[in-house]
């Protein structure tokens, strides 16, 4: 589904991704861990098409497309969803309007008719229940005045609404209380199918108690320096990152 080969990216001349390799297949869950500033969010942004980063080298193939030939909105409509580490506020635009526009744009891209208002509302009600989202939030402006946890939950709600093929969740667990964490994890698990995949960026092993990853990768200084199974997360929790750093051969 997603194949990243030797990906290099920089911002304002500063190299941040220094040769990433990653293969994600349908049905898989990948966890990416790594210290602050190692480039996790940058990787997510580059995959989503944020143009402030410049890709200098490497190749990314997604569902048979050269990913870099697709605009951000095309990537979204082709099923890439990014759960933002810091969700953006859009004053004056209601969540309902925002989601309706997004959903119908994606449908248009796929050659489908827009959803009728009643179908849309039904779809929204279902998904809201799934992520136990407060009814009020969808009537408010996008993320405006939402608490940290509400913003994160809202990201999962949007993911549920848009039913992506590849979900990239950037620290969606940070700032969540334990109930919210369970709900978010539940949301992710319910959307899991043999046809889609997720990349979960996190600092905490506890999320991985709920979302069982097939692979865990450690991103350090713009490179994946270690990949392993679920056990790797426990090891990191116990030992931190230092023992891995020592092992790097430059």
């Amino acid at each position, binding site marked *: 589904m997603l194949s990243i080969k030797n990906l290099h990216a920089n911002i304002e001349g500063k190299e941040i991704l220094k040769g990433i390799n990653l293969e994600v297949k349908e049905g898989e869950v990948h966890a990416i861990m790594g210290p602050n500033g190692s480039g996790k969010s940058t990787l997510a942004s580059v995959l989503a098409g944020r143009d402030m980063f410049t890709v200098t080298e490497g190749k990314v193939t997604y569902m048979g497309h050269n990913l870099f030939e697709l605009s951000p*909105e095309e990537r*979204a409509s082709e099923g890439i969803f*990014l759960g933002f580490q810091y969700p*953006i506020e859009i*004053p004056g635009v209601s969540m309902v*309007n925002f989601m309706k*526009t997004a959903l119908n*744009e994606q449908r248009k891209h796929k050659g489908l008719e827009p959803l009728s208002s009643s179908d849309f509302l039904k779809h929204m009600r279902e998904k809201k229940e799934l992520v136990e989202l407060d009814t009020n939030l969808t009537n408010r402006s996008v993320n405006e005045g939402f608490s940290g946890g509400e913003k994160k939950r809202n990201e999962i709600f949007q993911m549920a609404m848009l039913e992506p093929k590849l979900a990239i969740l950037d620290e969606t667990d940070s700032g969540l209380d334990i109930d919210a964490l369970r709900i978010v994890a539940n949301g992710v698990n319910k959307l899991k199918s043999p046809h889609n995949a997720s990349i979960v960026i996190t600092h905490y092993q506890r999320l991985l108690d709920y979302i069982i990853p097939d692979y865990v990768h450690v991103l350090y200084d713009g490179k994946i320096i270690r990949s392993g199974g679920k056990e790797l997360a426990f090891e990191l929790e116990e030992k931190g990152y230092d023992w891995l750093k020592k092992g790097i051969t430059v």
Partner: protein
Amino acid sequence: MQLRKVMEKDQDKILHEVTQSEYKYGFVTDIESESIAKGLNEDVVRLISQKKNEPEFMLEFRLKAFRYWQKMKMPEWAHLQIPEINYQDIIYYSAPKQKASGPKSLDEIDPELKATFDKLGISLDEQKHLSGIAVDAVMDSISVKTTFKESLADLGIIFCSFSEAVQEHPDLIKKYMGSVVPYTDNYFAALNSAVFSDGSFCYIPKGVRCPMELSTYFRINAANTGQFERTLIVAEDDAYVSYLEGCTAPRRDENQLHAAIVEIIANNNAFVKYSTVQNWYPGDKNGLGGIYNFVTKRGKCAGENSKISWTQVETGSAVTWKYPSCILLGNNSVGEFYSVAVTNNHQQADTGTKMIHIGKNTKSTIVSKGISAGFSNNSYRGLVKVTKNATNSRNYSQCDSLLLGDKCGAHTFPYIEVDNKDSIVEHEATTSKIGEDQIFYCNQRGIKTEDAIGLIVNGYAKEVLNKLPMEFAVEAQKLLQISLEGSVG
């Protein structure tokens, strides 16, 4: 601006149907018209009056105004750069040729004219109206047709062209014309008073709620011609009317002058709601051509508990100079001003309002939303004046500016003069930018940049758009997005 009732309740959908970024109303109608020679002098003023077969008092009014104007200078205080206008190079009267003069039945109107208004979305055929809107359709210097005149007359409502009102209701014209905007008011008001050619007149008698929206649609068609129209609305005690105004013009490389006057009088307990969607040709991307829109709009809340509410969506014109205002004379009277002004490319707008509190317990609300893009300049200029006897008066002003890009300007010039200690005046202002991160967030959900801007801008302007009658609101939303197309990315 189209006045037709848009059937889709689903306003959001509209945003995505819009793909065309061109000015849609830029066509010219090929119709024979009768124009007088270029230039302005007393003879021209007399000629206009004569063509309209006006009573003596009108000619006198025009001549006084003209003589006054000759002594005046064009105002320079606005934050606008206007090339010098050669007033001798303008045609002051141009009328599409018509078979019959006076009130016309539909069959007597030139099919070309009918087709023009159809193309603009304005049906002159009453049968074809889906909704309750009566239209006075004005092209260049004259009113082409006023619909629903007869059925409104049954309620005692007078709705007709200004010229007709001069003939049929001279007493009302004599009494009210110039009573809110005297010809001495300003340069363009004096010019208009001298050469105005048509416009609309509306009179709602005591106790009558006008059952349909009344509207005037202004269309400039002829080249090298100025448009000078006047609208006069009088609401007697306990009367109510909602009035709409729309305007468009062909795309031309030369600038054209539009200098209008709107006067509103609201007596005891009367409520007049006046909405404008101004979509004159804005000029091209490089600032070539476009309408100079210099307009004086003012309402007088003459009676107690009266209310005048202005709502404007300004997207067109190369230069806009316009301050719809309220004189709050009656005790407990209320004035409102809700405005969205969009400037893109090289457009300039200096717009705002004046709220003059004279009566006791008077209230005013100002909500101004400026949106600037491209190389444009957008200024809010507003005066809140509370006179000595306006005890217990209140004003709340909110002026927001939204910037798209970094080559445009947004400016706020609030003037506050309070001579009464028991009154409260509040002013809030914000400036914001559409952030790249907001656009990217939308993109990431599948929304194209243009649609994202439409969504954000309409969200920003919602408070004002909600004040428009439904028929206008949907079109105005579309218009906002079209006006800003190509402004980011």
